[in-house]
């Protein structure tokens, strides 16, 4: 007896979005990153089309961070001394995208400046041929002040600019419009809020093909199930034809996983927690691999070993489709 696998016929499709521009398109990238385009749920190849595999980004900073785990500091080592070297190392580790986060202050505690971020972005663009995403430090005024010069410096490169939030998106979207970039729209774990921000951003006239949505997530044990469920509902709505939910999704499991006690703290924790380094890596990898299955199109990671593990999992899931 043959078993017929039931197939769902979805009416909607996730939008295809391309980050980065090669010389042909007016940029200097040696490769671009295209995500989205799915017509079915993650890894259901038998049912629909999944033209692009989930992409893995590595987060780097414009300077050596003060508050990262010693495990990460040791891994990246010397490369953290210069954004260009760090980007290069990330490329070597297998990243599909460099996710550069700007700091509030310089290493000397001075305010970060437009001149400084221009220089950093230029160095990173020169150091690697990967497509680039740049996010501000996360304070509305300062984000706006720093992202505008970034957008100008990277004109034509089709970089992803972040982070647009409901209360602060107009300046960043205007900078993306003026310099032909894309934007990351981030909302706090809610289907309606995700939709609303996509609407607000597209109302400013930027094409939907230039918006990546970040529905926000939590680390394993810290709300991942809530984030997972919101992503799942967004993707189901997208496949059902709800246009404003059809943006590809980006999430940041790296930042989430590396701020929880299990990965941050090596001493004074129960012995049964096991080896610190391994635990921290597992935490990031398990968080990320769960999110891959909820429909994430881009995952931002911090540790190169995690990237390897998640990539292996994606390879394995894709292999069954072949």
């Amino acid at each position: 007896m043959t078993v017929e696998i039931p197939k769902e016929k979805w009416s909607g499709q996730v939008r295809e979005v391309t980050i980065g521009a090669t010389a042909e398109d007016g940029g200097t990238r040696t490769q671009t990153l295209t995500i989205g385009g799915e017509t079915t749920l993650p890894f259901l190849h038998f049912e629909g089309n999944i033209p692009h595999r989930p992409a893995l980004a590595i987060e780097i900073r414009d300077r050596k961070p003060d508050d990262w785990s010693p495990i990460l500091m040791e891994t990246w080592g010397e490369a953290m001394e210069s954004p260009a070297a760090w980007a290069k190392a990330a490329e070597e580790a297998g990243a599909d995208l460099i996710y550069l986060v700007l700091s509030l202050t310089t290493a000397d505690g001075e305010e970060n400046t437009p001149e400084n971020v221009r220089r950093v972005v230029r160095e990173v663009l020169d150091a690697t041929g990967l497509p680039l995403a740049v996010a501000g430090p996360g304070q509305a005024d300062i984000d706006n002040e720093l992202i505008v010069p970034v957008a100008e410096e990277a004109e034509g490169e089709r970089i992803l600019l972040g982070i647009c939030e409901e209360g602060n998106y107009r300046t960043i979207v205007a900078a993306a419009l003026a310099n032909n970039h894309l934007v990351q729209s981030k909302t706090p774990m809610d289907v309606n809020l995700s939709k609303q921000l996509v609407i607000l951003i597209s109302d400013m006239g930027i094409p939907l093909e230039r918006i990546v949505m970040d529905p926000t997530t939590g680390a394993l044990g810290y709300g991942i199930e809530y984030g997972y469920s919101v992503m799942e509902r967004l993707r189901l709505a997208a496949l059902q034809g709800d246009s404003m939910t059809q943006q590809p999704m980006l999430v940041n499991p790296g930042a989430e996983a590396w701020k929880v006690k299990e990965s941050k703290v090596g001493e004074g924790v129960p012995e049964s927690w096991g080896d610190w380094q391994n635990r921290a890596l597992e935490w990031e990898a398990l968080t990320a691999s769960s999110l891959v299955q909820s429909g994430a199109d881009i995952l931002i990671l911090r540790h190169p070993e995690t990237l390897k593990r998640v990539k292996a999992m994606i390879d394995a899931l894709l292999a069954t489709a072949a």
Partner: protein
Amino acid sequence: MATHKVKLLPEEKSVEVPTGTLITEAAISAGLEITQPCGGQGRCGRCAVKVEEGVVRKRSTIRLNADDLESGWALACQSLIEGDAVISIPEQERIERRLVTEQTARAIELPFDYIPAETQSIQTRQLSLNPPTLDDSQDDLARLQGALQELGYHPVEISLLLLQRIGPVLRESDWKPHVLLDAPTPGSGPARLIEIGASPFHPHGVALDIGTTTVTAYLVDLISGKVKASAAEYNGQIARGEDVISRIIYAGKGNGLSELGTLVRETIQIVLEKLQRRTGVPPDEIFKVTVAGNTTMIHLFLRLPPETIRLTPYIPAVNHPPRFLASDLDLPFHPLASVDCLPGIASYVGADISAGVLASGLSENDALTLFIDVGTNGEIVLGNRDWMLTCACSAGPAFEGAGVVDGMRATQGAIEEVWVHSDTFEPTYRVIGGEKPRGICGSGLISLLSELFVTGVIDRAGSVKLDLDTSRVRQGDHGPEYVVAWADESDTKRDIVLTKVDVDNLMRAKAAIYAGFSVLADSIGVDLADVQQVLVGGAFGKYINIENAINIGLLPDLPWDRFHFLGNTAALGTYMGLLSNELRMQIRDIANRMTYMELSADNSFYDAFTAALFLPHTNIAHFPSVAKIWGDEVDNKKEEK
């Protein structure tokens, strides 16, 4: 315990109070009033007073800035007397909204052919008794009851008060007394004797609607069934909390419950005095009172502890109160008058809605009807003659002008409608009374929000676009804001503004109401577009513009001819229940038939609420007419660029 002397200015009244007395309590003991819109929770900041001399202990100083504190301002409901003090109480907000209910009441017509003998529980009769003789030695009461039984009234209860009087009255009337009976089912017992006398009675009744904000009464001639006069007055409890939750909290403090019960009685007394001036009918000639109100108002009126109304699982002491005597309730009507509180449905859908549904005709109509009554709380009923579903959503008082920086009630000086120019963003507005504006009332706020949205001054999330080329938008003390009137054109000599915080409050209020509709409709698989008529009750509906209300997503986007504004449906339904036993039974049936949905226990409500927290709604497909106007406006702007 040590006591301290507190002098209150400008009245120059002094009181001695113990250490730890709140300034508000000190004021009350001095016979002065300090308004506490939030019920003394220290949230609204409207009870600020100035400590001129002495020191008070401030438990909280929320909403007071450093300058205020420096110059001695303190929150009266949060500051404790700990030594002698001199305190200035600023002039309290005067309550002076036009009481619209007085206008609408006059237009009320007898809603059906009224034949008192068939439908009225208050019956008057003249009896003819055989005088006693040595051979017929039956006592007076048995003789009276015998005569009543012959007319079909048996058994008849009689109070001691009347028993004390029957002997003389029977003889004075030469054994032909006039009686006034309360016979809920006419013609058959049990009945109750209310009054007996030598001359005929002309009975009157009162339909009383106790609103959170306004108390309305109709004085009704129970023979003709006509409304002789109506009167309305602000509910005296307002100063102890503007919404039901604040009042429940206040009722839980000290003897707050007793105080609130007294305040509403004082209001009823004022209303009755007005009615007496207009008709000459004194309160003690009123023999029947029918009362509607939301569940909290009924609890406070009956002095029932309301605390459980606001705590899960939200169980009131009573939904169907029994009848009481006016004397039991310490009310100034005839002491034996029956006081009939109409039945409610649940903690947040009260008798005002049961009565309102009767008045609206929803429960007898085949058409799929949405009935909404928006006050401080929004109550919604969806259904027809076969089924009815109801819920309450806490809209808050934003549409009544509270919780908005320059919000005010719909009185003299309130901006009631605004138009914004789509290129220059300059507003024009209309003010009640035609004078200089002092603030913006509910209809003005709805109209302003709609205009700011349509012209693109705010985005669909309600954020003010500070990058527009106009001085009307700016960063103010409370965040981004839009200036509706400059200081030199306002009566207050200050700019009248709508801030981002105000917009958020209005958005939350409208989203709560819209989410209420959509959850009700979704829960039974009805599409809001299929609603055949929308009936809007309450004073709220009278002044709002349908187009503006649809633009902001407060009302569903349906053809305008499906909307009907009914005025005070609660008072009308109460009037109907006062006149007719049969309709009174229908109100009870309506209350029993309605299915109540508790939204706080419903998972879909939050989703529906966040979806509605957008202009007009996250799913613009539900608002085709708005999509069209607004789409055109956006296209025009893009072309200009």
